């Protein structure tokens, strides 16, 4: 456990990369959207009818999807952090197991902390009527639209999932470089294709559709958590025999 903590500190020895980059990028995305919303006419659009142009309120409100940028950044941080710093850690007598556990623990801790900030920002967004311009930056319909604690939970799980996924890519690259990453992506596509063929073969599309329409955001979060555990196990199996 002590070693885990030291591995996490090792990743944070230059702290701005994992701590600030996600927010710097998110802030950039936020500002761009804010400017667009401030300039755009408010919540309605013009439809030309036989009686001339008529102003109609927008069916959906101002969803941007801009919050997705932080999830992508988590993937990249996971990928970048883990592959590059493995050799020096092994030089200092850290086992691969501890290195992996410490790195994953750091990713989960960052996800939980940043998930909380996202939930708080979403509360502010609601309280200020979309930052004064009716923009839903931190609210994503269905996925991140419930109470603040559910937003916290769902974003934490999703951020952790992407960090862990990124780590796995980093380890695959460390072991087999670009060729390995290509094979890794192809293998994942093959898994998806196999799933599609299986569903199609069993004529089960209706069932799959019902499953997803019946799924709540909380249920989906549970599903993502399960997937994260699966990816965590995959990364561990890959790092076990990695050499430097």
């Amino acid at each position: 456990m002590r070693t885990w903590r030291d591995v996490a500190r090792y990743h944070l020895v230059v702290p701005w990369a994992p701590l600030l980059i996600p927010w710097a990028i998110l802030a950039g995305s936020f500002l761009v959207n804010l400017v667009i919303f401030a300039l755009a006419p408010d919540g309605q659009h013009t439809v030309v009818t036989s009686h001339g142009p008529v102003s109609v309120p927008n069916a959906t409100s101002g969803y941007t999807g801009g919050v997705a940028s932080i999830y992508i950044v988590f993937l990249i941080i996971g990928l970048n952090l883990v592959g590059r710093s493995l050799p020096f850690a092994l030089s200092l007598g850290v086992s691969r197991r501890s290195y992996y556990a410490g790195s994953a623990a750091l990713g989960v801790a960052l996800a939980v902390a940043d998930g909380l900030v996202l939930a708080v920002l979403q509360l502010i967004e609601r309280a200020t009527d979309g930052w004064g311009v009716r923009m839903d930056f931190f609210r994503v319909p269905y996925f991140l639209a419930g109470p603040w604690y559910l937003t916290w939970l769902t974003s934490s799980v999703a951020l952790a999932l992407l960090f862990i996924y990124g780590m796995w890519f980093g380890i695959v690259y460390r072991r087999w470089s670009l060729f390995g990453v290509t094979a890794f992506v192809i293998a994942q596509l093959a898994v998806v294709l196999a799933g599609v063929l299986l569903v199609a073969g069993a004529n089960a599309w209706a069932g799959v559709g019902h499953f997803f329409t019946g799924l709540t955001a909380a249920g989906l979060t549970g599903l993502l958590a399960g997937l994260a555990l699966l990816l965590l196990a995959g990364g561990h199996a890959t790092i076990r025999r990695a050499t430097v």
Partner: protein
Amino acid sequence: MTTAISVSGLTRRYRDHLALDQVSLEVESRSIIGLLGRNGAGKTTLLRILAGQEFPSSGSVLVHGAAPAENEAVLRRMVFVREDQTYPDFRVRHALRVASWFYPHWSAELADALLADFGLPAGRPVKKLSRGMRSALGIVIGLAARAEVTMFDEPYAGLDAVARQIFYDRLLADYAEHPRTILLSTHLIDEAAGLLERVVVIDRGRIALTADADDLRGVATAVSGPMLAVDEFTAGRVVWDRRRVASRVSVVVVGGLDEADRLRAGSLHLDLTPLTLQQLVVQAAAQPADTLERTSA
């Protein structure tokens, strides 16, 4: 004396070549061992396996009585800084700070002194360091860690003669105060000879020779003089290398020479020159394996 490292029948096979071939080796704790051999002889592979960075194809490795691979109890007592060590994107002081967290006996004092000795700027990004500076950083980490098993792989690639001397002096001084097991692979054999207690020569993945450094100093002698006299003197002895220039011949005789031998050589007007460690290693590496085993026995 207890055994720090015990290797037996260690083989590491890569797709098309045998990096290590049935290597067996015992290293006593609290000693300085030189791992000598040519490029590609298998020195780095052996050290990587000892440090748990690489896995053996077969054979066993024990460090302090346990296999090091993924064994934190053993690994945490070791440090292994490589010639081609890669670091994350950070600065010299970050590398030292991180290293200090992993070693209970880390000496910040020694690290600072070494930084000053080598003129290593703490604020410089590691990837901006010259080759010599990178080597110096590895040396600082390896020494300041004060790990029970300290391994250096070609620690002074790119370092100038003054910096190398600093390394030898600091290593010996710190070793005297904090004895530990130090494994050092190197090409600069004669330079390092003064600090090595034991020498292991690896050649093409096999152990060519293991001996106490002191024992090796008189083990081979170059004998030169008129051909007939040399032939008379070397009759019945193991002879390694024979060179002829005009009527003079120079050969390397293996095995110690006693006082009677020296007197006889003098009366035959032969020149005797003991082989330096480096010459010995070069000679040893050129011999077929069975000759070597006879010598090291």
